[in-house]
């Protein structure tokens, strides 16, 4: 029997790895991948909590569905933005896209 703690620790680890990716990768696409990992960690938590704490309810699953939708939308728009940036600046390295400072 798998205790809840396993899932929670797994999700925490996945989240931290994703966060590391977001903070450390140069390539903007890779940053998006990190975000996907984080979203997945959240989803694992949602489903695990649903299954362990409230198996009769549906709130956890419903939230997970929303996360799916948001993830899909986020990737679509994010990648479109990245491609658009690439067309203009010829690079997708996050630390080269630093026009923000002026």
């Amino acid at each position, binding site marked *: *029997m*798998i*205790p*809840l*703690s*396993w*899932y*929670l*620790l*797994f999700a*925490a*680890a*996945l*989240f*931290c*790895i*994703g*966060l*590391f*990716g977001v*903070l*450390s*990768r*140069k*390539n903007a696409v*890779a940053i998006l*991948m*990190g975000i*996907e*990992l984080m979203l*997945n960690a959240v*989803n*694992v938590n949602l*489903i*695990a909590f*649903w*299954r*362990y704490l409230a*198996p009769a309810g*549906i709130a956890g*699953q*419903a939230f997970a*569905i*929303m996360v*799916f*939708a*948001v*993830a*899909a*939308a986020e*990737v*679509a*728009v994010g*990648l*479109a933005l*990245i*491609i658009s940036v*690439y067309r203009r600046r010829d690079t997708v390295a*996050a*630390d080269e896209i630093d026009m923000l400072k002026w």
Partner: protein
Amino acid sequence: MDPLQIIFFIFAVITLVAAFLVVTAKSLVHSALWLILALFGVAVLYVLLDAGFFAAAQVLIYIGAIAILFIFAVMLTRKDLRDAGSQQNGTWPLAAVLAVVLFAGLFFILSSWSSFGMPKPDMPAGANALSDLGLALVSANAYLLPFELASVLLVAAMIGAIYVSLIKK
């Protein structure tokens, strides 16, 4: 250890290793492929959580759509198909420290929670998770509005993505 635990353990390790490779791999295409493996591992965990629908949806949405988009994007945003040089930026050690500290903090907080190690309860009798979920998503006094909003969001994202990446004449 019972077989389920073994399966969990195997796939959790695979997933975490794959995830780690996602954020460290030199080649971005490899990164994307590792991402697929990690997402597949998560799908297996969904099965272990009695959420078959989510497993199928995970494979369909993440592997079938999102990961392929990633591969596409990786290939579209480069001149050379091979990646050269480090893919980490200058602050990566700080980021690593932060991630580890965060995990430690989470572990610390979680471990002091009373139901941290609770065993899996049986599914309540007569509950059909899938059809309950489906009905809840279209029931006006449950999640109809968020569900519709999600679909609107997807349409908006689609239009936005097309607009943003359109080559304007």
